């Protein structure tokens, strides 16, 4: 069963059809890339999938459940996690707190437990701490646990953002231009991270990216859109040789 499935997804801003009948389905353990020139509608699609925009028409199913009309945090509950093009971390909080916040719903105690420091609170916090440290260990970042997020190097910040998204236990991870602003070395590390996530977690990944090295390097399937319409689908090799895609990117 597809973890992410959209049908006839359309977004209309006044007279402009930003996205027109977009269809995609991403299965478990699959890594799909979404590419297209500037203004093609990639981010609009992303915003619809993550609950920022409500589509004009069409359906989105995450993990088999309807995701249209849900707010971003309800999408997270359904199992859709995302990262941002411009990294959005909780900058002035330590790395571990960034993960703990993503664990919010896993920690089970109410406000009174928290205020009066009952046993349940200490157990919950202990679990949150241990889970977060374990999670950081997976990403080999446990040494940075007490570092403020803003003091991490850029590549590590991106890694933390991805780790934080994964801490919400998603079914599908949506990465919005993860390589933006990275040098080749950092991009290489990012590719390794993405491969690692795919092996380690049972999830589907949808990737929007401009960096062709990254897209061709990690994606199994690629969807190309232009002016809100799908113009090509296929494996990286097929896409590389597709005349429509070459036309869109390089001109006639």
């Amino acid at each position, binding site marked *: 069963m597809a973890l992410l499935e959209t049908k006839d997804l359309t977004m209309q801003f006044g007279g402009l059809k930003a996205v027109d009948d977009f269809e995609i389905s991403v299965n478990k353990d699959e890594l799909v890339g979404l590419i297209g020139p500037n203004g093609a509608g990639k981010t609009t699609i992303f915003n619809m999938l*993550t609950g920022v925009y409500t589509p004009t028409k069409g359906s989105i199913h995450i993990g088999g459940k309807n995701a249209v009309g849900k*707010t*971003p*945090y309800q999408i*997270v*509950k359904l199992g859709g*996690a*995302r990262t*941002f093009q411009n990294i*959005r*971390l*909780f*900058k*002035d*909080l*330590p790395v571990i*707190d960034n993960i*703990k*916040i*993503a664990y*919010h*719903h896993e*920690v089970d*105690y109410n*406000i009174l*437990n*928290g*205020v*009066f*420091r009952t046993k349940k*609170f*200490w157990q*919950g*916090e202990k679990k*949150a701490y241990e889970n977060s440290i374990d999670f950081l260990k997976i990403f080999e970042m446990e040494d*940075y646990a*007490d*570092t*403020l997020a803003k*003091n*991490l*190097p850029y*590549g*590590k910040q991106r890694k933390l953002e991805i780790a*934080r*998204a994964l*801490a*919400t236990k998603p079914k599908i991870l949506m990465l919005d231009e993860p390589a933006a602003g990275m040098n080749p070395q950092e991009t290489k590390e990012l590719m390794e991270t993405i491969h690692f996530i795919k092996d380690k977690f049972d999830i589907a990944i949808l990737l929007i990216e401009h960096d062709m090295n990254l897209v061709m390097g990690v994606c199994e399937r690629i969807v190309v859109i232009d002016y809100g319409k799908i113009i090509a689908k296929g494996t990286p090799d097929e896409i590389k040789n597709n005349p429509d895609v070459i036309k869109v990117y390089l001109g006639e």
Partner: protein
Amino acid sequence: MKKETLKSYLINLLAIVILFIIMKMLISNGILNRYYVGIIVFIGVNIILASSLNIATGFLGQLALGHAGFMATGAYTSAITSMAIIESIENGVIIGMPNILILIISLIAAGVVSLLVSLIIGIPSLRLRGDYLGIITLGFGEVIRVFINNIKVTGGAQGLTGIPGLTNFDNTFWITVFVIFVLYTFTNSKHGRAIISIREDEIAAEAVGIPTTFYKVLGFSTAAFFGGVGGGLYAHYLAFLDPNIFGFMRSVEILVIVVLGGMGSLTGSIIAAIVLTILPEALRDFAQYRLLIYSFLLVAMMIFRPQGLFGTTEFSMKMFFHKIRYNQIFSPRKEVKDGD
């Protein structure tokens, strides 16, 4: 609970009890006379008001300009409640009860009414992103004052008299301690973390599954609840209420305490509340320059330490235990010195 945590809790408690005993001795010796006790009570009230406002502005990151409005709501609610209770006791409708119980009941009433009012203004305005809350609370502060001025039950512009003087040094001290404890534990729980994450980045908070509107309303109404409690305590010390003491300048005074102490630091609010309550009294001879000094302080603070006295850090006994490990007192978290 970790042994270390328990130890630091006990040490804090011990420090507070010792402080209480010392002050109590000074009062019974007459070194602290009635005038000084009055200032201490106002310090307590200001600590409650500032640290509760800090939840909304410092921890949640929402601009709230009408804290005096919640203070007024709480002050009048508690005053009317306690007067009604005492009247019922005199008429034999209900059995007599100790003063402290009357005070606590009326303070809870004050908090609850302030909380309800905050829900009315918070739910619509906090659904939006941006500074709408600032504008609405600014208006609310004035509306509540005009409202109180024009209804009968509050005594209108003549003020409300005959409020029992239930607030004294003892109960102010312990209520302040209790409020600080509750606010501290609240901000250091998963709910507090959710609130802080909204200050850090609202969009990211929503994207990791935090229901932001709920937590914004929760933080704001917590601030309003304790703002009401602070107002109630204030009313029972003054024993007289006049709507004009809850004007816009009162809100600004509380906000100044929060900003000076550090947005996001309860310790900062406590220290700043002490300083900024004593300062005007100490400078009584220059009363006309008070606002000048306030603004000068703020400007100087913005230039030299824009994050406030304490920034977002808290002072704690634990910090001294960890002093050697971190080798820093005021920024207890280890930072990476060079890149990777």
